[in-house]
């Protein structure tokens, strides 16, 4: 018995040693590569996001989008001889792991950082400041920008999206002041826009916010929906992920509460921000998703165009399945990678050394005539010292016959400027 345990231990220790040695050699190789290839530069980017764990259904296509676009850049020699090396790490939606990843990226030299969740962006805000690291998170939380100079949102913040939806409600509602409820994720990510919508109302937006519902893992939203209906709520603006919205929509359609047309009297019209919609919602809610209004800044594949063709071609080139290719989060990842690449290109074109300072400068100057037009969004990416949200333009989509179709033309919310 004892003998066998000893053997077991030696095996274990040997294995551990081997792993360590292999890691050691890996480090050594890297150094060599760096010294031999002096002419062609490698720019180090990094992305830490939730490929597993909560919100992984969004993180997964996002990671694929980023990975594919950088591969494409390298293979097409878009940066000439230079290459982009983007390390993608899974942090399982845990801030501690994100922090560890970030420290590692920093230690290995980092020129531009892509982050993911609201929680980790807020948790690492001070680190970004201290490191002066330009960062684009996948979270569009307006709170990310408070007391921060280095965080850039890819598109309009959740707050702007929610306000945009609210404005749409106000403009298209017939009758007296519309009564609105918000259905939100029980976290910073969900709660962020609530206070901003309230501010917009205080600033003169003519609507009444009746209730803010934080959802749990509910199997049945009947109680909530009935309550809202009794209070006269006609619109529900959701800021959460797809799965709870799907459950709510299914319950609503079961109760026959879903408005057939926008603002139908005695029924509820459901609207949602970026992460509530997309093909995943249709996959989850099925026919109950019909007439769900959704806003985002991305062009989606059910409205084909040049941008979506490019997106699908990219996904096809790297063998992605249909689901990932069609996902608006894939477009999201591609767009963020495009912005990073564009910054590098511009810095190179100006003959500047590509590093975090110059890339930060490029981001700040990305406005006016310098605005960047990626193909996957409905408007240009504009950043400046005061405007840290990229694509300010939003597009409203609604589900018609099982696919999101555009409603109206792209718009920019007015009240975001007034609060």
């Amino acid at each position, binding site marked *: 018995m004892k003998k066998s345990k000893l053997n077991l231990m030696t095996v274990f220790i040997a294995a551990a040693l081997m792993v360590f040695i292999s890691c050691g050699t890996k480090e050594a190789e890297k150094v060599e590569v760096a010294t031999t290839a002096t002419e062609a530069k490698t720019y180090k980017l990094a992305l830490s996001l939730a*490929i*597993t764990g*909560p919100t*992984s*259904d969004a*993180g*997964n296509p996002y990671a694929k989008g980023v990975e594919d676009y950088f591969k494409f850049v390298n293979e097409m020699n878009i940066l000439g001889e230079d290459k982009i090396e983007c390390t993608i790490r899974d942090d399982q939606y845990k801030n501690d792991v994100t922090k560890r990843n970030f420290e590692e990226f920093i230690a290995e030299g980092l020129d531009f950082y892509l982050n993911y969740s609201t929680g980790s962006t807020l948790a690492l805000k001070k680190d970004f400041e201290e490191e002066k690291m330009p960062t684009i998170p996948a979270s569009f939380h307006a709170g990310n920008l408070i007391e921060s100079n280095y965080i850039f949102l890819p598109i309009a913040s959740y707050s702007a999206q929610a306000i945009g939806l609210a404005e749409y409600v106000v403009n298209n509602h017939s009758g007296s002041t519309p009564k609105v409820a918000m259905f939100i994720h*029980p976290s910073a990510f969900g709660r962020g826009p609530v206070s901003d919508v309230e501010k917009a109302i205080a600033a003169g937006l003519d609507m009444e916010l009746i*209730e*803010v*519902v*934080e*959802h*749990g*893992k*509910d*199997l*049945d939203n*009947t*109680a*909530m929906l*009935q*309550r809202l209906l*009794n209070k006269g709520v006609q619109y529900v603006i959701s800021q959460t992920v*797809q*799965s709870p919205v*799907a*459950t709510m929509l*299914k319950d609503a*359609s*079961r*109760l*026959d509460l879903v408005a057939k047309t926008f603002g139908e009297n005695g029924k509820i019209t459901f609207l949602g921000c970026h992460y509530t919609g997309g093909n*995943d919602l249709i*996959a*989850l*809610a*099925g*026919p*109950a998703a019909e007439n769900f209004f959704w806003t985002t800044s991305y062009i989606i594949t059910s409205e084909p165009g040049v941008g979506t063709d490019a997106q699908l071609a990219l996904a096809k080139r790297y063998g992605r399945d249909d*689901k990932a290719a069609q996902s608006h989060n894939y477009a999201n990842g591609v767009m963020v990678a495009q912005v990073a690449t564009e910054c590098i290109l511009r810095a190179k074109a100006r003959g500047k050394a590509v590093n975090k300072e110059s890339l930060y400068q490029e981001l700040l100057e990305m406005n006016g005539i310098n605005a960047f037009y990626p193909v996957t969004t409905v408007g240009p990416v504009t950043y400046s010292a005061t405007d840290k949200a990229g694509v300010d333009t939003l597009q409203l989509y609604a589900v018609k016959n099982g696919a999101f179709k555009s409603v109206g033309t792209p718009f920019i919310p007015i009240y975001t400027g007034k609060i």
Partner: protein
Amino acid sequence: MTYFFQLVVSGIVVGSIYALSALGFVLIYKSSKVLNIAHGQIIAVGAFITYALTVWMGIPIFLSLILSMGATFFLAMSVERIFLRRLIGEPIISVIMVTIGLMSILDGLVYLTPFGTENFSFPVFLPSTPIDLGGVYISWTQLMGVIITIVMISGFSWFFKKSTVGISMRAVSDDQLASMSIGISVPKVFGLAWATAGLSAAAAGTIIGNITGLNFDTLHAFGIVVFPVVILGGLDSILGAVVAGVIMGLIQQFAAGYLDGNWGLNGTAEVLPYIILLIILLIKPHGLFGIHEIERV
């Protein structure tokens, strides 16, 4: 008043799903005194198998439900054979931790499939217009869920009351030594208990999947959500699981219906079960129908 009855109906629907989820839990605990924390994962796997059979293979949903129940039957049985059999007689913490380890392993295996990170939805096979009971609505899917739950639970009750195997399982849960001495193979019974739990898990998973859509996180969370239910009902009582499931469903619906949105409260339906759980543990730890065998210190 319609509001009240709507809450009651919803509570019963949610409660019966809880009951079905809790059933598997209770079956395992009753015979082998193992708290199976990985039950949520088995529920999820069951749902995924049903989906894969229905959508990818094109088998009618009821047939694939039965096939999936068969699959989880063998899955759970082999889990017991491989992992739990060796641990008979080990301290409770080892047994709990093994099921936790199992949970992680199953997580890992599910991540190998598309189900790990992506969302799916069952095809609609029931009429989508709800049944209107005088202003109170219930969907066909929910009704089907309740019916399946009732069928499963009455089936199990019959099985334990009348069939020889069922009676031997009850004997083992009553007294292992005595049942061994009359020739019942205790390990076999343990295996069978797990297998039947797997059976019920697949059914529960399929029903939940039909209601919420297939999302791995949502589905496996049911492994934890049913804790308050099984404690309220008593860990070793099937009747308890049913009654407590319905009670818990009603409590949650009433909390969501009357507490949320008032007095600044929100999400009470999430935490209330655990508060009730703590109270029950303090005043009546064996639950409503459990056997009094708690030792007071």
